[in-house]
């Protein structure tokens, strides 16, 4: 074995080891969470998913997460409906219409926005935006709409830059040939390039949803925190992430309550896992 082989082996093993850390951490995380959920799943059973009464500290306790699961979904859906079209419009503008200077300004604004700590956004919404919404008829200072606005602000940079990347990834010749055939600028961008970039755009949408559903601090601060199934945009909600953040700190370790919070974590992890899988699928189907 010469020196070169030796070096190669060392480098390879270092890289493998580092890469394995991630995989092991992920598997370990899953095992850890699943193990912690066992007491709640065996002791409480299906009631966790079917009851909407969350009274973990009462006697007798009740551990129903239905309202919070539904709240999570409604909030995520609502925020996605706001952010995805806006994100696409920004991406489309950046790709097709913006001059270099405009591109630079918008891009740096997006980068800056993505760097703002979430707790600052939460505070800002709570102090400045919430009173405005109350003039429009909100009865509760924290509500579904405010939380959706917060989540949109947070995920907009993410959605816009991902979509812009997938548009830019399409070969410029496609756009040029469409223009040469007499398509308008809008048609070329919207009907030709966007269609070609569809898998990338879908992927961006899924990743954005994934990000929205896991966001915690903003929903903890401005979603209102009542574990009910919201019937209007002015109703408060309490998503799963908010419950975990709010109660994990002082729950007795090892209790059923503690374990039930891990069930909430497992639900979120599963959703995120499924979304990631779908996103992989979408990307792969395009490449074939």
């Amino acid at each position: 074995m010469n020196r070169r082989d030796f070096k190669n082996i060392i480098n390879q093993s270092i890289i493998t080891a580092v890469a394995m850390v991630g995989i092991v951490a992920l598997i370990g995380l899953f095992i850890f969470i699943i193990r912690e959920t066992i007491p709640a799943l065996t002791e409480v059973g299906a009631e966790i998913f079917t009851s909407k009464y969350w009274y973990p500290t009462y006697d007798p306790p009740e551990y129903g997460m239905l309202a919070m699961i539904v709240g999570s979904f409604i909030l995520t859906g609502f925020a996605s409906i706001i952010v995805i079209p806006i994100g696409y419009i920004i991406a489309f503008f950046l790709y097709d219409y913006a001059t270099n200077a405009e591109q630079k300004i918008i891009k740096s604004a997006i980068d800056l926005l993505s760097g703002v700590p979430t707790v600052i956004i939460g505070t800002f919404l709570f102090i400045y935006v919430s009173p405005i919404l109350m003039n429009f008829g909100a009865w509760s200072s924290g509500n579904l709409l405010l939380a959706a606005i917060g989540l949109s602000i947070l995920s907009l940079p993410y959605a816009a830059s991902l979509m812009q990347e997938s548009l830019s990834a399409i070969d410029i010749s496609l756009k040029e040939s469409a223009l040469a055939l007499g398509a308008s600028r809008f048609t070329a961008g919207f009907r030709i390039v966007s269609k070609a970039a569809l898998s990338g755009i879908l992927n961006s949408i899924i990743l954005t949803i994934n990000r929205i559903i896991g966001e915690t601090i903003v929903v903890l601060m401005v979603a209102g925190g009542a574990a009910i199934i919201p019937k209007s945009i002015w109703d408060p909600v309490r998503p799963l992430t908010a419950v975990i953040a709010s109660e994990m700190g002082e729950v007795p370790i090892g209790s059923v309550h503690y374990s039930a919070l891990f069930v909430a974590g497992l639900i979120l992890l599963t959703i995120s896992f499924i979304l990631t899988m779908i996103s992989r699928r979408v990307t792969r189907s395009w490449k074939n």
Partner: protein
Amino acid sequence: MKKVLLTLVLVGIALFSFAETLVIKGSNTIFPVAQLWIEELKDMYPDLSITLEGAGSSTGIAALFNGTTHIANSSRWLKESELEQMSEERKYFIPVVLGYDGIAVIVNPNLGIDEISIEELAKIYTGEITRWNQLNTNLPNQRIVVYSRNSASGTYETFVEKVLEGKRMAPTVQMLESTQAEIQSVAKNQYAIAYTGVGYVTNDVKVLSVDGVQPTKLNILNSVYPISRPLYMFVDATNGYPETGPVKQYLTFGLSKRGQELVEQAGYVAAYGF
């Protein structure tokens, strides 16, 4: 040689601190007070090492029975079963009152209401009453926006016990993470109601008298105010009151002028020196 020396020093420090470790367990309500005390105590006695765990009053008292803690913080008095266990095991725990927990009921200053009864309060929090004019016809026909601290807070525990008498809070009640958020929410929303430790109340909100009693310091100290309770530290005094050592140092500091100031700083009412 250097390594051996270092190990020796470390072992020495470990042994020394082991001998001096003071263990405190119990009520989450008292946790912030104990934390403030410990911070200052460490400056006074740098050799003293203290561990603090907030696991609930019952856990604290159970730990006192099996000798795994020196001091049990408790936001409630001893239960009958615990008193029996004490006499069975021929143990003697003494209570030391460290302060009082008084909960103020707050509303927006623009709401035309000055007092409320425990019964009405319970009805609002269990969801039986949802509009202000159900409480009093002079009040606006508006939905009551009900705020509570999250269920991990000691204030929440006291409120559920003293006002709801164990009944469930309605799911429509909005759980907030901090007292600050409660005060902000009530200050901004004309139809809101919330409760908070008396130490935190600001001028942005109006404090209601409950069953005709204002939550003044004296009313809380004498438990005339209905939503108040004493906070205890239980100490094992089977072999007499601890006259020296870390337990004594801790208790003495807690009841000192500075210690009582810190009780107020944590949002409670000081038991001594008012």
